[in-house]
Each structure stands twice: as C-alpha cells, then as structure tokens.
C-alpha cells in the first residue's frame, strides 16, 4: 500500500465503526480524517473537549472567529446547527461520564492488555495528557487508529514501555494491516488487508495475536 493512501484507508475503516447519532471525540492527526469517510446517512455529533458539542465544518477564513471559537488544538472552529458551547466541567462530564459513544485516537504504543501509551516520551517530549486520560477512561468505545508500525518499529506490544495514558481502555485497533479487537483473552485479528499475509502482520506485531475464526478481508 502506498504511504499516501494509508491514512485515508485507516480513516475509512474507522468511519464504518460509527453509528448514526453517535457522539464522537476525535484525536489530532489521522482521526480528524474520519468524518470525510462516513457512510451515507450516518451523521455523528463531534465533540471538542475545549467546549463544543456538535462541532461544525472547518471555517473558511471569512467565517473564522479565532479569538472566540477554536477547537481543542487552538485552531479556528465552528459550531454546527444544533450544536452548543459548553464549559470545561460540562465537557468532561460528557467525556468522563460515559456520554461519548466513541473516541478515536492515535497511539505511541498499545499492548495486548488494551493498555495505551500516547501522551509522553520521558526526557524527549512532554506535551501533557490534555484530555486524553479522561477520554479513554470515559468513552464507551476506544478505537486506536494508527499505522501498524513506526517505520518498522513495533507499536503493538506485549506490554507498553512508555508511561500509560490509561490501563485496559482500548477496545479496537485499526491499522493499514488489519482490524484487531481487544478481548479479555488478548488481541484478536478480525480483519486483514489482503495486501499483507498473516505472517507479515504477525511479524509487524510484537503482541500475541489470535486469528478470528470469522476473519474477513479489510476494505
């Protein structure tokens, strides 16, 4: 698979996990591509943790009001029709309280117990956890959407080596190689990208993975 196609391919697969009416929080980077791939008739409510329920499309430079309306990355944003502005307490009541149906975010590392590390590389990069720890603890479904390896280096591990964002929080991992569900018995490959062999997927994964009896091709 061409490098330029990978992110769109992953985002398109994530989009099919979302249901009409779901309240969704998307992390930065790849996850922000997901709404463009939503199946016809599926409308989701996007939440920005800085204070929007029902975030609208990205504003044009005329529509932008950067002093007053921004997203969680500080970039200009818009509220959609029927959306609302909320304060941080209410935002995290939504997030932590189990009212967000799904959060999609990237990972530095994820492991076979569903532990996630995506907020700090000690001594190198200390940006802070922002709302990530609350999100993965509170959202009903946590999807990690990322490239399977970091330039060949394993990211899906037996045990995360970087500090955790949260423990036992990830439900599903979607990469360009396949779809992996996190179960009580570990990681289970339910879909695979036919461009790769199962052997290649195993090699790109440090964690133990089992193969689903109902394994299907990922599209």
């Amino acid at each position, binding site marked *: 698979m061409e490098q330029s196609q990978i992110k769109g391919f992953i985002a398109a697969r994530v989009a099919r996990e979302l249901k009409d009416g779901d309240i969704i929080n998307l992390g930065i980077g790849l996850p922000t591509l997901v709404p463009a791939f939503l199946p016809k008739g599926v409308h989701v409510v996007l939440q920005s943790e800085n204070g929007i329920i029902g975030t609208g499309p990205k504003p044009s430079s005329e529509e932008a009001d950067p002093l007053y309306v921004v997203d969680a990355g500080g970039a200009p944003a818009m509220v959609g029709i029927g959306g609302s502005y909320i304060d941080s307490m209410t935002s995290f009541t939504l997030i932590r309280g189990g009212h967000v149906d799904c959060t999609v975010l990237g990972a530095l590392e994820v492991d076979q117990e569903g532990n996630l590390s995506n907020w700090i590389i000690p001594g190198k990069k200390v*940006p802070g956890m922002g709302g990530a720890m609350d999100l993965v603890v509170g959202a009903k479904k946590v999807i990690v959407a990322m490239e399977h390896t970091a330039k060949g280096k394993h990211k899906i591990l037996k045990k995360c080596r970087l500090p955790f964002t949260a423990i036992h929080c990830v439900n599903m991992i979607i990469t360009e190689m396949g779809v992996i569900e996190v179960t009580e018995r570990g990681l289970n490959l339910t879909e695979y990208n036919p461009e790769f062999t199962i052997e290649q997927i195993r090699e790109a994964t440090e964690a133990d993975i089992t193969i689903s009896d109902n394994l299907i091709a990922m599209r």
Partner: protein
Amino acid sequence: MSKFISAQQAAERIPDGAVIMVGGFMGCGTPHKIVEELSKKGTKNLTIICNDASMPNGPDGSDYYGVAKLVHNKQVKKLIASHVGLNPEVAKQMNEGVLELVLVPQGSLAEMIHAGGAGLGGVLTPTGVGTVVEEAEHVHSAIEVDGVKYLLERPLKADVALLSGYRIDKAGNIWYKGTTRNFNVVMATAAEIVIAEADNVVEVGEIEPENIVTSGAFIDYVVDGGVA
C-alpha cells in the same frame, strides 16, 4: 459599590509569589489586557493554574499569546496545566530548572477547581488510575470504593482568578461568546479575589437573567477590556 478597576489595578492586586488561575484554552477566553499588564509589571514567582501554556504567535498578532507571555518573561515559577505542547518555551525552562510543571488531566483539573470553589474535600476520579498521575502531588491517594479504584484528587484554590467574558454587566454578570467559557466558569468560584475582563461592558439588565452564565455574585472586580 462599583466593581470597576483598570487592568493595571488588577495587576497590582497580584503580588510576587501569588497563586493565580487564568481562564482560557490555548489563549481563547484568556483576559489578555490583564495578562498584558501583569507582564509589564514583571510580577515574579507566580504559580499559574491554567488549562495550558497557550502558544506563541497568537491570532491577535501577538508574539506570545495569553499566559505564554508570562512564561516567556520567566515570571512563572510553577505551572499547573493539562497540556503545554504548543508552547516550546515550557520544556526549555523546565530543562533549565527555571519552571516547575505539574501536569493534571484536563477533566481532573476542572473538577479539582470545582471542588476548591464548591467547598468539597476532593474529587474521586477513575482518570489516571494505573498511570504516573498516581504519584503526583495533587493526588492524595488511590482508594477503592465499592470495588472500583479511584484517585482522590485534592481541591485547587488560588489567591486571584483572572477571567474573560464577552459581555459583562456592571454587577459582574457574565455572558460568554463561542468557546471562551472553558475554565472561566469554574475558576470564577475558586479564588479569594476574582477579576473578570469584559470585552464589552453593558448595563445591568442588558443580559437576560436566563443567559447569565456566571453570576456577579462570584465576581469581585470588573476590568473594561474595551475590545469591541
């Protein structure tokens, strides 16, 4: 009694070494005029409680936006925030040993301030369980309630809270525009002195009671920011 003071007078109420809360999220909803005066005054050794460290190159054309100005001037001894990734100055000053950073999950930060303002003894949250947050100074202990593990987070209070509102009436009642509510709403409750900067000052009664988000009961002083 008039609640009006100038931005300069607001800055004068903050002594060296004060603990201050500053509203805003990446500078959006931060009281920029008061922060500007505070940076001019050069108040030192501040402990700042703010969601983030904001960023350089603000959308208002400033070189350092919001609290980034205070960090850049090395006026901040300790920063309590959830995210500092957009302001590279923080990592630099941490490495130089100039700045102490305490990272708090964003939702926990909001609730710790809420607890401080609401007279509660702490916050029980599942966020941070099993992570390095368990070791942080703001965590009293990890405890189990009915089989579920939580962190008991301490309440947060400040000497002064600096807020921003789009419309503020002369009694201090606040209406917020867009995404500027963020931490302003909760910080209004949690400091000894609460100062709100109005982009627009309006007469009492001009904001419908139903639309007042922060009651003037929480606000000690109002600064006319005179933006619009």
